[in-house]
């Protein structure tokens, strides 16, 4: 056991072991539990940082366990893996702080935080997976660990949402299993490889490969909430706000999108997928999802539901960028993986603050809330403008590169999709901002809790402000040294010959 094998395992263990211990803790051990949570989250970030350092110094990290003859469980570092693992471990820390504050005094916290930690373990596993079967393992694990979080409140609606989530994701998982086995019987390997491992197969197998591609996208599209497989996501917003943050920004939806990236780049290879004529239909599907999600978001009065439909729309930007088969568009898609996460987590945490502090769940109740909770709404505003794509925020760069990439790929229609979508984004976010800042506040809020002279508890306030600042920073410092763009360029360069 040397560092090369130990580090990926430690990264998983840094949330797995605290999770196991937390399960066993009695409810009232708040301090121990919080320390474990935060220590795990911080330690994970340190480990990920160590891995970055190692990669920059030419080290390679890989842990293997033989599962079946010729088929290993592999955890491996790579530029793409690092992108996702950094995102999820960074946002995990923020979400943990938030969740500690959010769930203060509520029942079953040991259970909640136990599954919360397992969830992040599964996500980092998805990120570091070095082949399709490892990916599948953690992908399914993610399903199992998020279910208890979605039904955490135990109400009938929550259980209904959980049931729906399971129906969608278990069918999706089965499709993924079927296609993985099928690919394995054809190719004899499932190892993620730059530019894919299938292009060498006989041409007579190409129709089969096209079917498998559809199965894979269907299986992954469930979590990535591609239309028409998105039905579970808006329902799942009944879960507590930190869970929504986890679902929408850190783990579940991202795992689906990340899986599609893996399939297109490291299983099929973008050029091979393009030559099979698979990328254009995927791009069209993503475009339809983008428009559809935005349209549906427009008509939701419930804040979290509007945000959920917004996720449906925004996550497909990633897929769109991937499917355009141009290096620049891919760059746009990949940075949006990060941008969407940071922005959406901000929005959900702010929505959670409104619900926890003032009992506000609907947009129609938000009149003048900006005066009561200026910091929360400031963070929300930054997140919303990021989503709309206003410069110089993070979201602008996503759309910018997507647009450039579309032209580069000769798919001019995508520009219209982006334009319409941005207009729709503005149409469903700006009224919220107007209501919050410019309308007169009501005499009393639906269910106000007092936090002295602060607008809300600091554990609830600091995380969204941090991510809002991050949204700003990702935009303003887009070209600073060690930036996200450089790193994604490295990933892209490995995907294209």
């Amino acid at each position, binding site marked *: 056991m040397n560092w090369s094998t130990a580090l990926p395992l430690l990264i998983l263990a840094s949330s797995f072991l605290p999770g196991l211990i937390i399960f066993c803790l009695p409810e009232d051990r708040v301090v121990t539990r919080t320390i474990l949570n935060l220590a795990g989250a911080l330690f994970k970030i340190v480990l990920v940082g160590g891995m970055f350092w190692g990669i920059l110094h030419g080290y390679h990290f890989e842990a293997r*366990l033989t599962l079946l003859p010729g088929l290993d469980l592999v955890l491996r570092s790579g530029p793409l893996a690092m992108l996702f693992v950094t995102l999820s471990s960074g946002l995990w820390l923020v979400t943990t702080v938030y969740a500690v504050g959010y769930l203060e005094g509520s029942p079953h916290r040991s259970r909640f935080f136990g599954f919360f930690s397992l969830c992040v373990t599964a996500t980092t596993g998805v990120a570091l997976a070095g082949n399709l079967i490892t990916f599948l393992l953690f992908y399914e694990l993610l399903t*199992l660990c998020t279910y208890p979080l979605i039904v955490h409140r135990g109400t009938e609606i929550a259980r209904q949402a959980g049931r729906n989530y399971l129906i969608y994701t278990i069918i999706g998982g*089965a499709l993924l299993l079927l296609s993985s086995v099928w690919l394995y019987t054809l190719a004899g390997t499932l190892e993620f490889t730059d530019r894919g491992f299938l292009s060498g197969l006989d041409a007579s197998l190409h129709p089969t490969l096209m079917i498998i591609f559809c199965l894979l996208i269907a299986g992954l599209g469930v979590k990535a909430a591609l239309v028409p497989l998105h039905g579970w996501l808006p329902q799942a917003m009944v879960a507590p706000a930190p869970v929504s943050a986890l679902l929408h920004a850190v783990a579940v939806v991202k795992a689906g999108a990340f899986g599609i990236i893996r399939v297109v780049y490291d299983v099929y290879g973008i050029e091979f997928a393009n030559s099979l004529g698979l990328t254009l239909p995927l791009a069209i599907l993503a475009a339809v999802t983008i428009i559809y999600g935005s349209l549906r978001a427009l008509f939701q009065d419930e804040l979290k539901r509007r945000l959920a439909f917004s996720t449906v729309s925004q996550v497909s930007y990633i897929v769109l960028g991937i499917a355009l088969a141009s290096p620049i568009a891919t760059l746009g898609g990949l940075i949006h993986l990060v941008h969407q996460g940071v922005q959406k987590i901000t929005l959900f945490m702010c929505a959670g603050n409104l619900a926890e502090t003032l009992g506000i769940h609907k947009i129609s109740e938000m009149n003048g809330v900006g005066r009561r909770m200026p910091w929360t709404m400031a963070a929300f505003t930054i997140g919303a403008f990021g989503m709309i794509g206003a410069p110089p925020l993070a979201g602008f760069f996503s759309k910018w590169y997507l647009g450039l990439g579309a032209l580069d790929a000769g798919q001019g229609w995508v520009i219209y999709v982006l334009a319409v979508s941005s207009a729709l984004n503005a149409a469903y976010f700006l009224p919220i901002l107007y209501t919050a800042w410019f309308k007169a506040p009501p005499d009393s809020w639906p269910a106000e809790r007092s936090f002295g002279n602060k607008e809300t508890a600091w554990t609830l306030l600091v995380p969204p402000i941090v991510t809002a600042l991050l949204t700003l920073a990702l935009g303003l410092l887009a070209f600073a040294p060690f930036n996200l763009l450089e790193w994604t360029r490295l990933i892209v360069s490995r995907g294209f010959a």
Partner: protein
Amino acid sequence: MELILGQIPWIVMPIIFPLIGSMACFLFPAKAKSLGLLTSLVVLACVTRLGWQLKALGSLRYPMGGWGAPLGIDLYADGLSLLMLLMAALVGLGISIYSSSYFSRDKARHFWPLWLFLCGALNALFLSADIFNLYVTLELLGLTAVALVALAGGADALIAAMRYLLVSLLGSLFYLLGVALIYHSVGSLDIAILAQRVEPSPAMWTAVGLISTGLLLKTALFPMHFWLPPAHASAPAPVSALMSALVVKASFYILLRMWLEFFQTQGAAFANFLGLLGAAAVLWGGIQALRQTQLKLLIAYSTVSQLGYLFLAFPLGTSIAWKGALYMLFSHAMAKAAMFMAAGNIQFFAGHDRIAELGSITQRLPLTLTAFALAGISLMGLPPSGGFIGKWLLLQASIESGQWWWGIILLLGGFLAAGYVFKVIAHVFTHDEPTSRTVTLPATMEWSALGLALIAVLLGLFTYWPLAMLEMGSPFGTGHSG
């Protein structure tokens, strides 16, 4: 030391020790608990040691008392027998630990001698080298199992036990008739000799038909599963566990052994027929499980469904398919035993097993519900679990051989399993006030269930030894696409 250990015929030990233990428990009922636990530990050690031997030798044939066939009794062990022995030893240890707290003093007096005797019969069955000894062990196993089912007392249990007795006898009778026919036409009972001499003939056809019917009846393959749910559900929890995890697998093992050695020459139509019944069992059992309102009946129907998976390997016939089916069998044994024990804990604690009323109980039994959930992962075939590995291999075999329809059944079975597992799990997440019952559940009962469930999950990560075991003595070497 090694010299002495090397001299011991380890192959006999898993049979002898339980029999000695059984008698000792009968004679000294006051010490039955410790004697039972000790026996289970010793059996596990002996099986491990036998495995050590087989690792070097591949397969092993041992004439009991040095007489040799056709006069004496031969024992035979290869990787397949070893896997079954190990399954029985691990589940057996779990059941012994569980039962040490489960039974009242009065019931324990009957339970331990019967249970250890069943253990011995089961191990003898897995080691028999000829089809008549298989009959004897099968009959012993069946009769002991009936007595154990009746142990619960009460009208339900007695009716179920009686029905089970009749089915079991009928099954054995069919089997015996088939054996007689084979002996008449081939002149031998030794499996190895039969494998060389058997040729397709009307007499063989009839014999195969009779033997298969008898064994399928005992394995409770759809549509002959009718006796299983009441028998498994009404028995005391550890008995349900050993019935579902071990006893039904014994008749399956005999069928598999005969199939590998000399049945499969009897044509593909029969294999497809078995596959079809298996598929029907997967779906029917799953649907019935979904409809149950009692936890133990749900688990029993899940057994009907899971047993169906094993028969999907017959039409596939490749060595990958057999490995998949046996991997499934092994992990199902762990998972199902754990699940029945968990159900037993719930019944012990709450005094009932009505699924709709679990909400207030589950919160008081986190370990038990964890065991149930982990076992459920394996039954659903989600990774990481032994059930997943089995499913992967079977799916691979079905795609490789172009018989993708069996793969569809595997996936559908997974959906049904997810349905009935989560039907129970969902009750953990309710608003119900935790009950204020003050029954204390012995820790051994919770931990033994959890231990077995953990094995089922870990089988999904540590696959080397189980798979290596199935290579020993290449039991599937004669398979038609080997």
